[in-house]
């Protein structure tokens, strides 16, 4: 009888200890779970393929509005020394045969098969389900192999300490960066800064996978090309009139 009482006594204490522990654990984990949920936000859909159609006939030589808007939005200095980051640049082209001249913006082409993602040793370069190619600044070790591999010279390396960053666009000294398609804006249903800033509406941004989207309709109706199509990377950016 005494032995039974002892056992019951021990069991009660153990039960209450377990209850308290479980309660404490729940209280400790719950805020973390909530934060995790907030951090993940809405999940990115693989049904979407973000892309751009750039009409070179509407892009004027000497106009730099897209570049200025990109620099402002992403907190870049706007300087053009060889060590300064340029996420988007205006390229002036002259056809060697005909002499025809054109001007166009060049940036990360957000390839379906991005060489930068293939070569990155730490998986810091990655492609989101919606086709946006990004660099995880916490994983990038700054080896610059992606810069060697990119056929479009779209990436920059941060050569100096940074100040006054835009909180929506984290950057880091010693890491590689490139156009993000203004992912922080796109996730809120807005357009990339360059597309919004273009005075001639030469940059059309949208979902290439949605047959009813303006960009998908235009890609179907006008002739456009991908740069270095021979490499078969299937970039998300197409150029009209190139």
């Amino acid at each position, binding site marked *: 009888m005494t032995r039974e009482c002892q056992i019951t006594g021990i069991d009660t204490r153990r039960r209450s200890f377990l209850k308290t522990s479980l309660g404490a654990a729940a209280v400790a984990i719950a805020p973390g779970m909530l934060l995790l949920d907030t951090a993940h936000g809405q999940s990115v859909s693989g049904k979407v393929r973000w892309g751009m159609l750039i009409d070179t006939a509407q892009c004027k030589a000497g106009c730099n509005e897209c570049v200025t808007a990109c620099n402002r939005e992403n907190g870049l200095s706007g300087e*053009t*020394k*060889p*060590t*300064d*980051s*340029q996420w988007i*640049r*205006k*390229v*002036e*082209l*002259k*056809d*060697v*045969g005909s002499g025809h001249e054109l001007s166009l913006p*060049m940036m990360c082409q957000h390839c379906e098969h991005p*060489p930068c*993602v*293939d*070569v*990155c*040793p*730490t*998986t*810091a370069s990655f492609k989101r389900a919606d086709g946006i190619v990004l660099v995880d600044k916490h*994983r*990038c*070790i*700054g*080896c*610059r*192999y992606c*810069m*060697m*591999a*990119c*056929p*479009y*010279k779209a*990436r*920059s*390396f*941060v*050569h*100096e*300490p940074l100040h006054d960053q835009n909180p929506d666009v984290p950057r*880091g*000294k*010693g*890491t*590689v960066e490139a156009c993000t398609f203004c992912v922080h804006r796109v996730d809120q249903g807005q357009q990339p800064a360059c597309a919004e800033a273009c005075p001639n509406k030469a940059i059309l941004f949208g979902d290439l996978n949605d047959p009813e989207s303006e960009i998908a309709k235009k890609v179907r109706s006008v002739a456009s090309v991908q*740069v*270095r199509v021979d*490499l078969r990377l299937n970039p998300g950016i197409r150029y009209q009139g*190139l």
Partner: protein
Amino acid sequence: MPAHSPLHFKNRLYYALLAAGGLVVLAGLYAVYLMEHHGHIITGMDDQIVWGMPHVFAIFLIVAASGVLNVASIGSVFGKADYKARAPLAGLLSIAMLAGGLTVLMLDLGRPDRIIVAATNYNITSVFAWNVLLYSGMFALVAVYLWMMMERRMNPWSKPAGFAVFAWRFILTTGTGLIFAFLVARQAYASALLPPLFIVISFAWGMAAFLVAQAAIYAWNDKEPDPEITRRMKNLLGVFIIGTLYLVAAYHLTNLYFAHQTGFERFILLDGGIYPQLFWWGYVVIGNILPLLLIHAPSLGKNKCVIAASMLVILGGFAFLYVFIIGGQAYPLNIFPGYQASSSFGDGQIAAYHPSIYEFLLGFGGLAIAFTITLVGVRVLNFMPQDKPHIAD
């Protein structure tokens, strides 16, 4: 007492050399500290020339580290007694140069403090990530190989260990060549010839590094290598030099055959300023023709000539890598075939590169690491080749 004075002198010389090596390593580390503090802005590298002088040093050391094991392989795998006696020294040199090269490569990273991420987030499609395994595996294998050779009880295992090292270093140098060969968009690099080219140049550079180290050890011990052994080794170096010349010629000739590559070849071989100069004078003349003359010309080919030839091969190796790595990036990417391009980001323009003192300090720091490991290694363990009376194989 007078009989002790040469030993006393050597002791002092050893510590002086150790101190010199250590100082250069410290200077390299100071450059790294400044590069980490200020960023890569203090180097000559930028967004056009993303890999610079540190990579020239690092890749030379890594390629030579693989090639120097050729001496060991000829001994362990092909059973040549003269080379077997030199296998331990070859193993030590390999570990030393690999350590120096990898240190430079790692400390040049934008975030060397995150190097552990390369192990925790492994990308199976990345040649760089493959090389992380290949290089660390090489360290372990060569260490085991040295143990098998230098511990009498383990001697029976030295042959299988030698085979493993032989296979591993082929794969490793293939991996180093592939880092460039897979860069399909760059005119200088996308070529299937690069892995075999890197393997053959590793033979020549490794052999040259070995001959210089061997000469220093013999001199230290007041000995002269057997002339017959010198003759064999210099002939082998000559074969390797001709092999590298052949493959380098094949690489450029195939490029010349492709019409879209002729612009790049013209730049590297003819009108690219420093790059053709370094290619023809630095690599072809100093790094190949002169060493071949020193090795094979009648009345030459003695010990001193072989050492001079080896040093010239090493210099030529640096010239080759400078042209290959920096020149390959300086020539503009052909993003818009058929168009002349210009922009604020160097499109269509030859990129300029002026290496800074910090890059050289880091590179020489890597050489000094290799030097110091070798110096301490030969001091504390017996790496002096123990030749038996020469018998023709």
